[in-house]
Structure formats: structure tokens, C-alpha cells
């Protein structure tokens, strides 16, 4: 038996430690992992727990991220609780296996410490890795700070391992800005944390020796579509009720409330910024300052990126007149992902808010309050004009002549 770790009610943890502690507390059976900045400390912390008797699962230090996810898939199909962590290039190397993990309906938890994708090589936080996996069939949660990185891991295991779901879940947090920034994190005791997630209940497990199973079959035009359609259907219809139920249960346990879409000052908001990660906290602060100046400013944070919360988004903007979608990933020749998703969601919704897009913060560049103030000024002008007064896409916080398109 692994030792219990006595935690203070509030610990000073960065996002990496918060994630590693959550993995320890749910007693993951197999972690197969490979280090990469900025997610390395998740793996190092876990190795430390192991070295000090706090873990009795297996820890497999493989030779690449592709192997990490491959080992996770084999372990998960064998029948037990499985998790790992990665960032950027490691995530990119995993992509083949991300699709395989979800297609095989394996409840693996992947902590993604968001980082820019090379080239040029960059170790800092942006969302290009997160965006790369958005069609991979995983559920994607986004944490804005270490507390949330901790909490959302428990919710992730609970949802993923539900037998009606059986899908892998990523818990995202911003590289460095969350992963390496220590803050107060309210903890659960080991027992309470484990009991929230519960014992792993295997299904179609290879290690049930009396009931052999075949995992990872071949299907062509005769069956492939049905498999993919079923997975998509489950993502569209089954997952949100399960996430909501897990959020509710977690709130009952801890008092901390999570929403599929997080709305800040949105009840009467006329102008709103939509973003993810640490930017949400900055935007919330700026929105409050805007409100002090009499502007009805709000912020929407996407908590669940996949499946995409179509209904909740449509509802969030009911009274809104102008919306800014902030994408922290270069769309490389297109509107940003958030812009496109919002446009698709709102096109048939009751709102006729003006929608514009911003690309910001690539490679970990700060999203400053002054940039956000500028965005709100644009939004106020758009709301007054009832149409865009700027280009639909602006790159903000980048040196050189202003770059705007569309």
C-alpha cells in the first residue's frame, strides 16, 4: 500500500504540482510518460512521489511521447486507471495515438501543459498544441489556474471512466503562466479525493483472462463510418450531462463551482471577450475596470472545448452587441478557431452581435491589460455602429506595422 500524504488545507502549488498531486490521489495504476518543458515537472513530481512511497502503481519512463501514449493505450485496454502529461512537440508526436486512444474508447487522462508548436522553437505557453488535438475525439477541459488544474483532473477521471462515456480527457493549462506559477490551492485529503473518483471499474479489459477481447480492429467503408458516428454521437449527446453531473458533485463536495461555459459579468453585458486559459483571469479584471467606467463589459471563458458547448455558448451572449474572439494560436491562413466556432454557433442564434477576432499571445507573449482595453474600445465602437469598425481579424501585441485581415 502506498503511504497517505498529509496535505494542508491550502498548499502553495504551481499547476504542474497540482496536476501531479491529483494523479497521485486518484491512485493511477499506470503512468507512461516522457518529459518535455513545461510539463516535465508533472512527471518529475510523480517520480518523486513514487521514490518516497506514495505511489504503488507502475511508472513507465518510455523513450518518446508517441511511446508514452502507446503504453497508456495498452495499459488502459488491459483494464485500469491511466494518465500522462505532455506539451507541444511531445503532443504533436502523440497525435497519431490520440486518435487511436479515443477511437478505442479508452478513458486515459492527458494533462496538456500548453506550449507553442515549433518552428521557431519556443517553450512558452500558447494554444497551438491544444488546437491541434481538437478533432481527435478527446474531451478537452481548460484550466485557468493551478486550483482548476487540480480540480478538473478529478472531474476528468470521473467523466472519462463512466461506462456511458469511455472517452479520454485532456486537462489543459497554460505553460509557465499556470504550470510554473505557484498559488494557493485548496486541497482534498487523499481519501476524499480518491472517493470522489472511486475504484476503477474495468470494461472490455484484456486482463479479464476468462473473457478475451479484441481491441483495435480494422474497418473499411463497411463499418468505419458507424464507429465514428457513434463516437461523435456520444460526444454530442452523452458527455455534457455527465460533465454537468460531475461538476455538480464536485461543487457539493468542495463548494467550488465549474460551468461548461464560464460567464463573468455576462448577465447584462453588451460587449464581451471570449478566451481561454490564463487570459480569462486578466480579461475578467479588465472587464471590471471597464464596468467602473460605465461600460457593460463581460467575459466568457470556454471551460469545455470539446465537445464544443454549442447551446451554452448560444445562451451566453443573448443580450450582447459585440463579441471579440481571442485566439492564442496562429490560424495560418484562416480565421482563428474560436472565431470560427463562435461564428458557426451564433449564426442561427437569437443574437445578432458583431463578431470580430484577435490573434494574440503567440509563443507566450503577454496579453496585457492595455491590449484588452483596446479590444473593449473596439467592441464599444462595433456595438454602437452595429457592424465591425475594424478588420475581422487583428494580430495584437506583435511588433511592426499593424497586421489586420478580412
Amino acid at each position, binding site marked *: 500500500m502506498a503511504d497517505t500524504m498529509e496535505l494542508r488545507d491550502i498548499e502553495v502549488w504551481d499547476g504542474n504540482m497540482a496536476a501531479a498531486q491529483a494523479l497521485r490521489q486518484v491512485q493511477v*495504476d*499506470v503512468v*507512461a510518460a516522457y518529459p518535455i518543458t513545461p510539463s516535465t515537472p508533472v512527471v518529475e513530481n510523480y517520480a518523486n512521489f513514487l521514490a518516497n512511497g506514495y505511489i*504503488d*502503481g*507502475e511508472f*513507465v*519512463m*518510455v*523513450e*518518446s511521447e*508517441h*511511446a508514452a501514449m*502507446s*503504453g*497508456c*493505450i*495498452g*495499459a*488502459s*485496454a*488491459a*483494464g*485500469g486507471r*491511466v494518465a500522462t502529461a505532455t506539451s507541444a512537440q511531445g503532443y504533436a508526436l502523440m497525435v*497519431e*495515438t490520440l486518435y*487511436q486512444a479515443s477511437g*478505442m474508447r479508452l478513458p486515459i487522462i492527458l494533462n496538456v501543459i500548453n506550449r507553442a508548436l515549433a518552428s521557431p522553437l519556443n517553450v512558452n505557453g500558447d494554444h497551438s498544441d491544444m488546437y491541434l488535438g481538437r478533432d481527435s475525439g478527446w474531451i478537452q477541459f481548460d484550466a485557468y489556474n493551478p486550483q482548476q488544474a487540480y480540480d478538473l483532473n478529478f472531474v476528468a477521471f470521473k467523466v472519462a471512466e463512466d461506462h456511458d462515456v469511455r472517452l479520454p480527457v485532456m486537462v489543459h493549462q497554460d505553460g509557465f503562466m499556470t504550470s510554473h506559477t505557484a498559488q494557493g490551492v485548496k486541497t482534498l485529503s487523499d481519501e476524499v479525493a480518491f472517493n470522489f473518483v472511486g475504484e476503477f471499474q*474495468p470494461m472490455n*479489459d*484484456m*486482463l*479479464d*483472462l*476468462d473473457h*478475451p*477481447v*479484441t*481491441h*483495435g*480492429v*480494422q*474497418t473499411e467503408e463497411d*463499418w468505419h463510418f458507424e*464507429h465514428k458516428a457513434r463516437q461523435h454521437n456520444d460526444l454530442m449527446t452523452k458527455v455534457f450531462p455527465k460533465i454537468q453531473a460531475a461538476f455538480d458533485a464536485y461543487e457539493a463536495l468542495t463548494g467550488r463551482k465549474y460551468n461548461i461555459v464560464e460567464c463573468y459579468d455576462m448577465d447584462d453585458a453588451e460587449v464581451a471577450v471570449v478566451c481561454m486559459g490564463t487570459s480569462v483571469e486578466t480579461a475578467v479584471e479588465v472587464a471590471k475596470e471597464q464596468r467602473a467606467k460605465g461600460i457593460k463589459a463581460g467575459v466568457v471563458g470556454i471551460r469545455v472545448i470539446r465537445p464544443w458547448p454549442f447551446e451554452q455558448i448560444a445562451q451566453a451572449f443573448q443580450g450582447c452587441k459585440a463579441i471579440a474572439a481571442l485566439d492564442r494560436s496562429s490560424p495560418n491562413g484562416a480565421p482563428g478557431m474560436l472565431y470560427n466556432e463562435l461564428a458557426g454557433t451564433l449564426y442561427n442564434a437569437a443574437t445578432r452581435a458583431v463578431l470580430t477576432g484577435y490573434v494574440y499571445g503567440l509563443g507566450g507573449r503577454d496579453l496585457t491589460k492595455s491590449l484588452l482595453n483596446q479590444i473593449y474600445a473596439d467592441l464599444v465602437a462595433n456595438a454602437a455602429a452595429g457592424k465591425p469598425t475594424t478588420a475581422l481579424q487583428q494580430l495584437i501585441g506583435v511588433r511592426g506595422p499593424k497586421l489586420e485581415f478580412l
Partner: protein
Amino acid sequence: MSEMKNIKNLKEFSTSADRFEGANLLCPGCAHSIIVREVLNATNDDLILSAATGCLEVCTAVYPYTSWDASWIHIGFENASTAIAGAEAMHKALKRKGRLKQERDPKFVAFGGDGATYDIGFQWLSGCFERGHNMMYVCLDNEVYANTGGQRSSSTPIGASATTSPAGRVSYGEKMNKKDMLAIMAAHGAPYVAQVAPNKWKDMIKKIQTGFAANGPVYINAMSACTTEWKFLPEDTIAISDMATDSLVFPLYEIIDGTKLNITYRPKTVVPVEEYLAAQGRFKHLFKDEYKYLIKEWQERVDAKWDYLQRREEASV
């Protein structure tokens, strides 16, 4: 405790209960299926299996059917080794935590073609061996990417015509020598490494059983004559295999603990390499006058390798 099967003759073998069904889509005469049956038949223990993308995988698990009566997993082309290593790690964890449904220790076996093994999956395989998982990796070595229509691999021998190294007006086909996977895997310090051939089934079963009894990662290189890509008639698989082992193109030997080499089969009459080559369409062009020197070089290489193996066996290294 491990339980090994004791099969005395081919008749007994043919009626022994199968965990790999004959109902599969492999070509008539494909040696892959013969090898898989021989491996699975070596033990009565529970088995957890994996396969790399390739002929074996696409022909044995086409939804909604499966040919496997033991748990089996396929992820991709390069990671059959790590798939089974992950399962083995889970078994260890659940055993330690007292959560196994049955208190039995299965054997963990991965199958991959030579493309999956020598080429694309090499890093994964090396990682598994370095970490020392308790698993057996069986390479079904047909010296070509058969599943995708006969492209070269780093196991394709010199002079073979493959679709990406075809023989043509100015080319004799493959230019590189076959990679020595056995030496490489032995260099990992694996407790057991061996080359086997389906025609020498008793030798093979003995080696598989030795592998199952070993503690740590075991590498088996299984010569798998390919009727489609080597270009011979389906009914000749065993005859071609006999030529391969009796010409010493595929010498049968084992390496224990990375150092001690034993030759396990010595043909009474050694067949000239030329006969082995002549029996297969993939080498047909070598019999033109301008390429005959290659056949001579082939024979010299095979002789030199045999010499080397014998010297190592004698020196017990």
C-alpha cells in the same frame, strides 16, 4: 506456474486446440499464420497479444470478426511492442494492488512484420527491451512490406526486387544488406534472442518455450516465407523454408543473455544459395549474366556468416 505444451508430432500439432483461428484472410500458403500457431501452441498459459499494422493485423481482426481467442490489441504500425508493454505494466500494477480478476500470470506477446520491427517500430522495441518488460516480441520476417504491396524494408536482402527497389534495365533491385536484428537485440542484453523458422517447428517450439521461461524481454526473429512477394506457389511455403534453413541463408541459432551463442540446427546437406534464390521470382533477374556475380557474393556472405556463428559458438561468446 507456467505450463508448456508437449506436442510430439505434426499430427498432434494439427489437432491441438487453437487460440488463433484458421478463419482469417491471410494468403493461402502464408507462413505468418503457421508461425503464430506455433508460438501460441507452445504454452497452455493465458496469453495477451498485440500486433503491429501489417498483414497479420489486417487479416485477423476485421470487424465484426476476430481470429483471436486470446485478448489482442492493435494500435498502429510502430507500437505493438509498447502496446504489450503497457498491458504488462498494468498487470504488474493490478497484481501488486490485489485487483486482478484471476490470479494467473499470462504471457505477453507482440507480433510485428519486419517493417514494423526493423524500420518504423525500432525505437519502441528498443525502449521496451531497455526497460526490461516481461514480454516476447516475435518478428514475422518476410523481408518486405507485404501488406502494402511489396515495398523494401531494411530486412530486404541485396538483389531482391521490391516495388520501391525494383529490378530494372539498370538496377538489380535492393542495394543494401539486411540489417542484423538478432545482434542488435542481443546487444540490448536481452535474456533470450533467437532465430526460428516454421518448417523447423520443434526447434521453434523449444525456443518459444525457452523464451516464455525467461525473465525479461525476448526477441524472436521468425523467417516467414511470403508466397505473394517472394513469388513462389502457395503450396511451396515449407519447401522454400527448407531451402532457406538448409542453405543457411536463415541459420537457426539463439543468443542467451546477450552473449552466449548456440547454433540449434545444422543441415546434413547444405543447399547452395543459388538454389534458394532460383526458387523465388523476386531474385529471377539475378540469373542474367551481368548479375551472376551477385549470386557468388551471396554465397560468400552466407558462408562467412556461418563461419562467424560457428566461431562464436565454439568460443561460447
